[in-house]
């Protein structure tokens, strides 16, 4: 451009009317385009068409699809999986079930089964049906009052005293275990009631937590049931052992009798 201007000036300088020539050149330069066009008009139109098409089809179509999908999922959740009406109906069902059965079941559970008529048995029975752990300390005395203590060493053979003592111990042990079990049962019923009560206001999200709590309580209950069963096993085993010992004693007595008869016969 510079060279071009120099040449033009040199050429104009050869003439005297350089002012006119310069004015002409400046106007012409002003009319020159600043930059050359890079692309053609058809290219621009193609580009715009492509962008429009992409927005409308590729992006817009996918977004509409996502919207439809979200709508479907939401409807499925709100109308099929967790419809609020069904949730409320279930909560209402829990409340009405509680009202229907709880009182009745409590009444049945609280029926007194005491049947003894005399003073000492009545006292013992009331103790072992008390469901109060605190009463097991008195149970031993009351049991001895009804069933008598183990005879003195002068009044019975050692094996007989041992058998009586063991039988008494396991019988009392089982009665005490029954008292403790009854108290635990009351506790478990309380826990079951709490879980059911809270279920009546639970949400689908907190429901599994309550179900887990119920499973844990059930595991505890099963463990206590096992303990009661262990007590029964001890008792039944002792009963079997007792009868077996009597058989052993019977054999020993027979042998002694035979020995004595033989002695009598040999030494008349």
């Amino acid at each position, binding site marked *: 451009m510079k060279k071009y201007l120099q040449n*033009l000036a040199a050429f*104009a300088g050869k*003439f005297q*009317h350089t002012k006119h020539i310069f004015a*002409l050149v400046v106007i012409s330069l002003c009319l020159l*385009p600043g930059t050359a*066009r890079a692309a053609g008009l058809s290219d*621009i*139109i193609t580009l715009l068409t492509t*962008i*429009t098409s992409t*927005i409308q089809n590729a992006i*817009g179509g996918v977004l509409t699809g996502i*919207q439809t999908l*979200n709508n479907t999922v*939401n409807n499925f959740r709100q109308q099929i999986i967790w419809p609020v009406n069904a949730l409320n109906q279930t909560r209402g069902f829990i409340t009405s079930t509680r009202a229907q059965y709880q009182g009745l079941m409590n009444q049945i559970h609280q029926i007194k089964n005491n049947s003894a008529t005399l003073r000492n048995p009545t006292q013992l029975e009331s103790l072992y049906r008390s469901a109060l*752990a605190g009463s097991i300390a008195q149970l031993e005395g009351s049991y001895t009052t009804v069933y008598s203590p183990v005879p003195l060493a002068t009044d019975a053979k050692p*094996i007989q005293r*041992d*058998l009586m*003592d*063991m039988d008494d111990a396991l019988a*009392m042990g089982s009665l*005490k275990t029954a008292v*403790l*079990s009854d*108290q*635990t049962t009351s*506790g478990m019923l309380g826990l079951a009631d*709490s879980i059911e009560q809270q279920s009546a*206001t*639970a949400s689908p*999200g*907190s429901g599994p*937590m309550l*179900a*887990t*709590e119920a*499973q*844990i309580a059930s*595991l*505890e209950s*099963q*463990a206590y049931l*096992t*303990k009661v*069963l*262990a007590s029964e*096993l*001890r008792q*039944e*085993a002792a009963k*079997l*052992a007792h*009868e*077996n010992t009597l*058989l*052993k004693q019977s*054999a020993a007595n027979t*042998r002694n009798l035979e020995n004595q008869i033989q002695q009598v016969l040999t030494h008349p």
Partner: protein
Amino acid sequence: MAGRIWKLARNIAATVVGLAIVVMLLPTKARSQLGLDPCCAIISAGLSSISNLLSSAVAKPLGAIQQLEQQAANFEQQVVFPIAAINQARGLATQFQGQFTQMKQTFQLPVASATLPAPQQLEQTLLSRSPGSVPQVTTNYAALYGTVMPATDAPQPVRDLVDMTDAEAQAAMKKAVEIDSLADLELKAAEQINQQLATAAPGSAAILEAQASAWLVRANAYTQSAMAELVRVRSIELANRGAQLKFSTAHTTNLHSTGSQMVQGAH
């Protein structure tokens, strides 16, 4: 005059030459600086179309999606997983922990009552809740209930019966110690799961539920094994009664034949 004409002609020629040069130097297609190029109108129309499309095809669905997402989030937070209900369930687990501990302490109250040495020892072993003490049952049992009588004291069938009965009685006592110990472990596990539940999320609670269910199945199995032992004890008890009746019948037959022989001998 000729000079003036020459001068004028020279000026005209210079102007024409200059213009020719300028025209020659001009690009064949130039974009004008002043006024609107047709391209601008097309670009403007295109951009306007893009803007409209962004509003209708992109922004509108995005707005709807946002609204849906918000609605879904509200539903989940208010209906499915309300934080108050979740905290309430966690609170119940904490409350139960205290009650579980109380129950466990209740069941640990001593129930031993034997007064004589041999029964006391056996009772102590039976209530030990310790699997390590199971082997002591045999010794303590023999000390209290005795052993099988010698062969000189009873016929073999009676000795067999006695041995069988002792075996079952001891087995039942051992089983009682074992399941007592297993029950303690179940209680410990239950407390641990409960502690975990007190800080669990609704999502992890389902996993804990599965674990608690597995433990429950296990506990049921142990209870079942204890029930089987109880059935065995009672079966042996019943078998003993039947055997005694059989022995009694055999004795009567023997007595009858001995009596007959004596009567025949007298005649």
